[in-house]
């Protein structure tokens, strides 16, 4: 699990890649929270485009990120979500709390 982040006009984009499981999630969670704490974005986008596998640890990652963005009064979006992570996310009902799309959001 690795990620790259981009910041533009208070919009933080985090490109996740590889496998998200319990082994990798805690480190990623801490790194994402740190980026939000430092950059104080208004919008945060978690891009799942390069995620090859995700279990329920990914749900915890999304909830954690959502909580951090809610504390700032900001918004979170999940984009480029492939079918496997999408099925896991939908099983949790997370779509009731956060916008989720298969497409990358427009620049």
């Amino acid at each position, binding site marked *: 699990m690795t990620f790259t982040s981009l910041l533009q006009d208070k919009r933080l984009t985090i490109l996740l890649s590889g496998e998200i*499981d319990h*082994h990798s999630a805690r480190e990623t969670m801490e790194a994402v929270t740190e980026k939000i704490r430092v950059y104080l974005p208004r919008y945060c986008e978690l891009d799942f485009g390069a995620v090859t596998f995700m279990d329920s640890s990914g749900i915890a990652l999304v909830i954690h990120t959502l909580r951090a963005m809610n504390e700032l009064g900001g918004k979170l979006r999940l984009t480029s979500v492939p079918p496997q992570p999408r099925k*896991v996310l939908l099983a949790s009902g997370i779509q009731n709390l956060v916008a989720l799309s298969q497409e990358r959001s427009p620049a």
Partner: protein
Amino acid sequence: MKHENEAVVRFPSLSRNEAFARSVTAAFAAQMDPTIDELNDVKTAVSEAVTNAIVHAYPDRVGPVTLRLRRLEENVLEITVKDLGCGIEDVAKARQPMFTTGGADRSGMGMTIMESFMNALSIRSRPGRGTTVRMKKKLVGRGDPDCKPRS
């Protein structure tokens, strides 16, 4: 139930073995000609069961986790994940969505995902003795005639 093929692996409850368990499961299931979606479902379910053993069964130590894979009749894959850890006091409560005794990095959705991604899930647990999770999924597959079981 009669099985046509079987594999058993045992590994210590180290989190890096979550990916190993998924790979072993996918390799075993390949002979059953699953679709990509079916393969993803069983990999996700086994990841949840093995993670539970690693996180909850052995919270303070490393212990053995046994993964048994069986190909049953009618192309049913049976996955059993067994630990000898602390056990679950209240299995019904543990199966409820969002319930977790883990930290902030756990979502409490593991059991719900196992239930919804597999056709059957049973959990037997004895406090202080360990837990056995058994799951089954019928793989409808892509219908490759070369993957029919041999007699």
